[in-house]
């Protein structure tokens, strides 16, 4: 076991992992699924089906709309009721297919299983991952086949499996690892084969001792993947910081992990890759945590993509009390929503309900220059100064003080004694700076 490196900054929010002991339950079939066509970064998928058409579970509903895009598959068998739109997690309307279940849940003939993946050309495996519509299930939903296709002149020697799950509240990845260790280990080996990576690391935060022990046991003879126990510290699961913790390599500013020979994959994505390659199953369901103090039975459910948040909450027995906030994702980087009509997407790791006592609503005050935000910023920025500059609309200064390096992890706003909305300021400045750069670019090219 080699050394683990401590990244700069970070905070220790309460873990609140209420559902960590609740085994994954399979959600019953629903009457209706709303499947968005844009659940990933990149171009929206192009619908291949007509209104009124009968579809089967796992059938391709929409093909990738470009190289950086992802296919979408039907979560069950039924009829396409409508090609319409739905409310997205970001508050905008997303194009979506609404499927009425026929209750049969008939499976389409799966893609041919590739059990002998060791001797299969990585290109064929990549095609399978693309066909299965797999995206990064940890957060950004970046199409996985693109992430696993580094340029030929950039060799990848290290694959890192992200089992950190540093967001408070969430336990979907934890349960997935605990209940499917063999599948995840094989999935990791498949991805390592695709990348021709010689090192395979699995990073898990040490609040999941059971999982760490299980994987150490399972990998004792092979040593792949190498299991690393990481001290709990948010944001340990941030891609660049996980790479640093395990390899001491620093991803260059504005660069990608592949610039330092690494690829990071979330465990849920690894599991989906295993399913796609070995079982020929496309990605149409995922494990999602439904938790929070107001929830009757916090737990983890295997939900079909396109179930609504309300359906997920009903599975958890509904609410004991009116929540003050509903968050898609974790409390540090998740998005608070105002409706439960939003469908579960491929990257929806959890639904968190906060009670009124957990709500952090404050009158924000003037910066007292205490520097706590500097101390906790994992990107080594100066959030307090940036916040003041941005309040004064000095986006030029914010740009010079590296606002674009901000990854919006929320450590600064979490720690700020003056309750300043620093992440909100950063987002505003990043939008402004990027818009300005794009305008300059457009001017140059015209």
């Amino acid at each position, binding site marked *: 076991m080699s050394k683990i490196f401590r990244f700069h900054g970070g905070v220790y929010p309460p873990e609140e992992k209420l559902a960590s002991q609740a085994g994954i339950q399979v959600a019953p*079939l629903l009457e209706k699924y709303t499947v968005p066509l844009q659940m990933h970064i990149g171009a929206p998928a192009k619908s291949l089906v007509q209104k009124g058409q009968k579809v089967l579970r796992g059938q391709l509903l929409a093909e990738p709309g470009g190289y950086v895009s992802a296919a979408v598959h039907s979560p069950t068998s039924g009829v396409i009721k409508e090609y319409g739109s739905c409310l997205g997690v970001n508050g905008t309307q997303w194009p979506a297919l609404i499927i009425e279940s026929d209750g049969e849940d008939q499976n389409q003939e799966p893609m041919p299983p590739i059990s002998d993946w060791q001797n299969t050309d990585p290109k064929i495996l990549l095609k399978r991952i693309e066909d299965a519509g797999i995206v990064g299930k940890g957060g950004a939903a970046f199409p996985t086949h693109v992430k696993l296709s580094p340029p030929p002149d950039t060799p990848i020697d290290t694959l890192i499996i992200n089992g950190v799950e540093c967001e408070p509240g969430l336990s979907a990845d934890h349960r997935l690892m605990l209940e499917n260790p063999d599948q995840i280990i094989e999935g990791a080996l498949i991805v390592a084969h695709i990348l021709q990576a010689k090192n395979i690391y699995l990073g898990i935060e040490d609040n999941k001792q059971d999982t760490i022990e299980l994987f150490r046991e399972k990998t004792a003879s092979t040593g792949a993947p190498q299991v690393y126990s990481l001290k709990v510290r948010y944001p340990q699961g941030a891609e660049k910081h996980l790479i640093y913790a395990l390899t001491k390599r620093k991803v*260059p500013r504005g660069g990608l992990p592949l610039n330092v020979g690494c690829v990071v994959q979330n465990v849920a994505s690894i599991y989906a890759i295993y399913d796609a390659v070995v079982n020929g199953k496309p990605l149409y369901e995922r494990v999602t945590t439904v938790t929070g103090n107001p929830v009757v039975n916090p737990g983890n459910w295997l939900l079909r993509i396109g179930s609504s948040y309300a359906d997920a909450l009903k599975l958890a027995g509904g*609410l004991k009390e009116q929540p003050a906030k509903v968050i898609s994702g974790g409390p540090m980087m998740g998005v608070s*929503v105002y409706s439960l009509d939003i469908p579960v997407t491929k990257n929806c790791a959890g639904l968190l309900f906060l009670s009124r006592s957990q709500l952090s609503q404050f009158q924000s*005050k003037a910066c*007292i220059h*205490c520097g706590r935000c500097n101390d906790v910023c994992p990107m080594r920025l100066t959030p307090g*100064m940036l916040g003041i500059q941005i309040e004064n609309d000095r986006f030029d200064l914010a740009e010079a003080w590296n606002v674009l390096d901000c990854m919006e992890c929320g450590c600064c706003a979490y*720690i700020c004694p*003056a309750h300043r909305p620093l992440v909100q300021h950063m987002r505003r400045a990043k939008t402004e700076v990027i818009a300005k750069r794009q305008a300059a670019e457009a001017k140059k090219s015209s």
Partner: protein
Amino acid sequence: MKSGIASMTEPEIRLPDAEQLVVSSSPHFHCGNSVAKIMLLVILALLPACLVAVYYFGVAAFRVLTLCMLFCVGTEALCSKLMKRPLEINDFSALLTGLLLGMNLPPGTPSWICLVGSLIAIGIGKMAYGGMGQNPFNPALVGRVALLVSFPQAMNTWQIPGMDSVSGATPLQELGMLQQKALAGDSAELNEFLQNIPYGDYMLGNMGGSLGEACALALILGGIFLIVIRVVRWQIPVFMIATVAVCSTLAWLAKPDLCAPPQFHLLSGGLILGAFFMATDPVTSPMSRLGAILFAIGCGLIVCAIRFWGNYPEGISFAILVMNAMTPLLDKVTMRKPFGTQKKAVKNA
């Protein structure tokens, strides 16, 4: 997998009322700290030293401390009203400024001087710049220095603990006078002074000085408390005290018959109060750790320069105020490189 459509419309399942949901930007958790909590903890850390001051100087000390707090909070309330700004005395920063101002005054300071000091500290030192967080200089020190240059007589009348009506000199003043004498040829008194320094009394506060300079032990305990609970960073007090220790050791080694030993410089005067409680004021000290270290070293050097060569026997206030002025510059020059900055420029492939 269960087949068949589950009935999910049982009436007892409760869903949220969307009208009552709060929507806001992430993060949705907060650590629970606040400016008011920080200020209260600093006040708490100062309490032991205040109690010692009251023990030695009696009602006079209590009067000065309470009046300064009262006047400072009053000044802030008045200024907020005149400036038509929301009243923010509930962050307790004006209360802390008042306490620190009081601790920087001699025990017998007349009430009207307390009032003038408070008006200057909060009115000019803080509110004139726009209130909380906007002031470049430590308000309590602005008040103290304004009083020091305006009313030198009142500000240099030091009571000796236990002897109500007797006024004497602070150890630093005494050292300065004796050094002058020694330079003029009469070094007998200086020798005697240097050989009989009552460190135990200095440690416990049994000496002449302003209220807060008194008890080094109580101040150090309070300061360590603040460092342990992470209200102040250790860098500023440690580097400031270390700088003074190094400089005074060097001076003492060079001229042992003229200069006081380093422990004299550490325990006499306001160094401990300044290093733990005044220089660490977040608003007027650098935000970056490296900046804080440079700031503290600067404070230490200026303190020594004033004590060794200056006209004033004591230089903590001036040193901190000068370095306050340097704070924005220090923050700028010590700006960190973001995570992932390459040591050498990477060639664009």
